[in-house]
């Protein structure tokens, strides 16, 4: 599998206290551990099991994912923006790799 590349959509600016929608997508096979290869051997599970979003270091949203989440996991959620700052996104893979993304937002 090629390197997992996260994509994040956050508005560039917002009014103070506004609730915005964040969309995230990361390319990943999310191998469920249920499938078998052509010799009948089970393909080991390899999924993204955790996702977290923080704003200026404060937790906004996090989740644990199970194999029942589709390949290229897509997550859409909301966040309240009290001031200008940086959203940080982290995805944790079963093999321990961590994929990260960052996005800044300005409050007008």
């Amino acid at each position, binding site marked *: 599998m090629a390197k997992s590349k996260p994509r994040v959509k956050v508005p560039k600016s917002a009014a103070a206290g506004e609730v915005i929608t964040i969309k995230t997508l990361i390319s990943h096979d999310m191998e469920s551990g249920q*499938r078998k290869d052509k010799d*009948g051997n*089970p393909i080991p599970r390899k999924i993204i099991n955790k996702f977290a979003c923080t704003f200026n270091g404060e937790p*906004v949203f996090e989740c*644990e994912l*199970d194999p029942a989440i*589709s390949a290229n996991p*897509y997550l859409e959620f909301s966040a*309240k923006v009290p001031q200008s700052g940086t959203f940080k996104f982290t995805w944790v893979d079963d093999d321990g790799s961590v994929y990260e993304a960052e996005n800044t937002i300005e409050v007008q």
Partner: protein
Amino acid sequence: MNLNRRQALGLATGAAAFAATGFRALPAMAAAEDAEKKLMEFAGGKALETGRITLTAPEIAENGNTVPVSVSVESAMEGDDMVESVMLLAEGNPSPDVATFRFTALSGVAAVTTRMRLAKTQNVIAVARMKDGSVYMDKKQVKVTIGGCGG
């Protein structure tokens, strides 16, 4: 150990058959019960109430590999009126867990959209636990034409 080809083949198919039955039969039968158990654990002894939580899923999913689902919970997300976490379960999958979402005051609105796999036609369950301990549930049946697990 010295094996000729025939013996080796016999062993391999035997092992494969065992693995197949072991993997398939057990979870398939236990999935609905398992989901029930997970639900009870999540509720922590509280009665499951309806309302406040809305699960949006298609009535018919042509492809069980990517079924869009949304969950939203009515809440001010301030002070004591706060959604702590939301769990998503699928009764008919090999394992009922789908995901657990946790919200904070910075979430603003307790709503999430994702895409999930469904092995067959089944009920999808969303439960939300509030900060005061009350638990709300919503359930939707999704008809699946092509399964999304295994293959």
